[in-house]
């Protein structure tokens, strides 16, 4: 029997309420698991792991001496979201995306939000990912973030909070799609009856989004996926998505610019490209504009973009929107651009660059989570309550040397979810990354990537830091 020893330890648990009663939307899966033996469950689990390895669904850990390719551990116990909860998230995320897109249009043209004193100019202009080169460049349909992966967490009361918006080149959606395949294989009879909304049309929606933002509203545009190449940690995903969409995957050297138009080299000669789904950072995109030493990009691409002959997704300079200082202003952006109150909450943020906040951070460093303003993947982060004295002091020095680059937040006790750990279910902390597409309309694939911190007590869910993932079910109903 499962869950007899299960303890929520006073955390918010996704499956069980505070009295240990199963939540209604988990009732069906509980009934499905109950008659299973531990051996049978183990068998299913191992079969899934093996299939991931065989398919080569791997990622790369940087700074790791032992071979770079790893499987992203998969936990068979799905995370389940009832209908009402999901439609609330959809409304909140849609609102947020609208505001972020309006912010980017504004900050790269009129800068009203600065001039009207909502966001200090210094925060924008000192942003590592604010691209002066992109000023006044018009983009088709005024969409800047076509693909966003927003990280959500739940606090100890179960409130959803936005932790960060990944507005540059979010990865992980291939795991979402593969996890679903794995679940269907593991529970072939149960799954079709469970009332789970499908996620399989993500690639089709993504292609629709790319086609919708083609220059001049061109019909049937040529789209390609631009990858930095097979050394990139997400190369598997690049291939996966290109294949699913039926578009070419290219590297910088496969593209060439002639007379402000971008062409792809093919066996039949040059073919013009209209939309580039780029999985390569701004810095490396065009050596004639950004880093001249970049071997990955396409010289001339930015001027082709300026001339309006090509579009890229996401746009250049979207990184200013997911700068962690700017994150703190998203609720103000929603009020400023949409005249609405934010639907989704987010985490209180202190700025090391402000005198009062700096003092507070220095005095409470061992009680705070400190993040570098522009790092992703769980790198460059301090979790005060879990850090050693030495780690805290090292961070203190780092913050002092570059205050603009750090923010601090109170630690949030992320919600927990039953997770298979060495022969039984135990509670582990989870987050949720839904994938939001902005095209003709904003669409969010029903589900998302639920990441789980497999280490007991750990709050860091990133794949590079020992995290795993779960399939995420959004139900047609509330139970």
């Amino acid at each position: 029997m499962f869950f007899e020893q299960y303890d929520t330890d006073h955390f918010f648990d996704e499956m069980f309420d505070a009295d240990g009663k199963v939540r209604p939307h988990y009732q069906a899966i509980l009934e499905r698991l109950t008659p299973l033996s531990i051996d049978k469950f183990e068998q299913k689990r191992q079969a899934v792991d093996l299939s991931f390895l065989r398919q080569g669904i791997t990622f790369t850990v940087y700074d790791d001496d032992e071979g770079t390719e790893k499987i992203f551990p998969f936990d068979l116990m799905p995370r389940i979201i009832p209908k009402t909860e999901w439609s609330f998230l959809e409304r909140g995320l849609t609102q947020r995306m609208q505001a972020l897109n309006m912010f980017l249009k504004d900050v790269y043209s009129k800068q009203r939000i600065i001039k009207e004193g909502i966001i200090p100019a210094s925060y924008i202009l000192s942003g590592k990912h604010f691209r002066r080169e992109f000023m006044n460049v018009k983009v088709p349909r005024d969409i800047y973030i076509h693909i966003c992966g927003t990280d959500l967490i739940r606090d100890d009361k179960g409130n959803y909070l936005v932790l960060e918006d990944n507005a540059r080149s979010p990865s992980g959606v291939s795991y979402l799609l593969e996890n679903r395949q794995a679940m269907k294989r593991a529970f072939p009879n149960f799954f079709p009856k469970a009332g789970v909304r499908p996620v399989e049309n993500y690639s089709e929606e993504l292609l629709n989004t790319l086609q919708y933002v083609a220059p001049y509203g061109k019909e049937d545009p040529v789209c390609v996926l631009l990858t930095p190449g097979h050394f990139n940690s997400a190369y598997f995903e690049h291939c996966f998505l290109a294949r699913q969409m039926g578009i070419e995957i290219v590297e910088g050297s496969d593209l060439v610019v002639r007379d402000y138009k971008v062409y792809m080299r093919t066996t039949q000669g040059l073919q013009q490209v209209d939309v580039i789904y780029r999985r390569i950072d701004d810095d490396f995109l065009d050596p004639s504009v950004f880093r001249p030493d970049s071997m990955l990009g396409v010289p001339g691409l930015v001027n082709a973009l300026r001339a309006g002959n090509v579009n890229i997704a996401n746009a250049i300079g979207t990184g200013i929107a997911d700068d962690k200082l700017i994150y703190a202003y998203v609720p103000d952006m929603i009020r400023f651009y949409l005249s609405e109150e934010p639907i989704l909450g987010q985490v209180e943020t202190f700025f090391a660059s402000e005198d009062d906040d700096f003092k507070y951070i220095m005095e409470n460093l061992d009680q705070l989570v400190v993040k570098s303003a522009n790092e992703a993947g769980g790198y460059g982060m301090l979790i005060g309550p879990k850090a050693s004295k030495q780690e805290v002091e090292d961070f203190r020095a780092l913050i002092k040397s570059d205050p603009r680059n750090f923010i601090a937040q109170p630690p949030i006790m992320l919600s927990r979810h039953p997770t298979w750990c060495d022969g039984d279910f135990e509670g582990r902390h989870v987050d949720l990354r839904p994938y939001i597409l902005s095209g003709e309309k904003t669409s969010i694939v029903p589900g998302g990537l639920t990441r789980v911190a497999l280490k007991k007590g750990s709050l860091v869910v990133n794949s590079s830091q020992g995290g795993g993932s779960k399939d995420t079910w959004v139900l047609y109903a509330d139970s």
Partner: protein
Amino acid sequence: MKFSVQHVTRYTYANPVWESFNDAHLCPVSDELQCCESFTLKILPQEPRVLRRLDFYTNQVHHFEVMEPHDWLEVEASSLVETMPDTRDFTVPCPLAGLTGLDRDERYYDFLAGSQRVLLGPMFEHEATEIVTGVEDVRLRVEALMAYIFREFRYAPGSTQVETDVIQVFKHKRGVCQDFAHVMIALCRSIKIPARYVSGYFYVEKSVSGSADDNSASHAWVECFLPGIGWVGYDPTHNRRADVRYIKLAIGRDYVDVRPLAGTYRGEAVAEMEVAVQVALV
């Protein structure tokens, strides 16, 4: 005063190069003090299409691309420009209090923060503070910093390269107009006075080749923001305010933002560059 300017840049490559992408900051500014009456850009040998745009600091940029292999490239910028005397009252006080909060304003932030070629450091702050001690007016502070550079630094062509960083210049106290402009910017920014780099030309009646008074060279100076007056040009190479003899091409955080010609190309060859400038009174 009315001038004709000819600025010819010729690159020669030992082996052919191709896919050359270039941005030119060669078109004189039109503003209250200057009017660019005509501008033409001629590019040889391939006469590519030129795309004009404004950069972040609203300078005009002319972009062109030369795709076919070539072993030389010539860019000839010709302009006719009229300069007007600055009639603003420079005797009004410029209180230091006027500098408060400028680092939060989008018009000044970039000219107060360190930039790629003007990295700020404690040595600049230390030196600047020492120079301006007792001076309680922003304009007088700027003039004190300029006079300091003029007095302490030696004009020495060849002592620095175009990439020499401002700390080296500051240590060796030698350089050319570009270096002096960078040092002055570093000193001003260190004491919270917005300062920006100006690239352009300077006309002198008695031109001496290779000296600081040379009509066949481009020039660089600085603009500082004086509360109550506005942006004012200062030339640390000559220790004076920029006047009708100064022709402005572009402004930026430092040299990198306003390079007259900047670009990349494919190919093995190192470029040899020859520049010929001629500023003449019309």
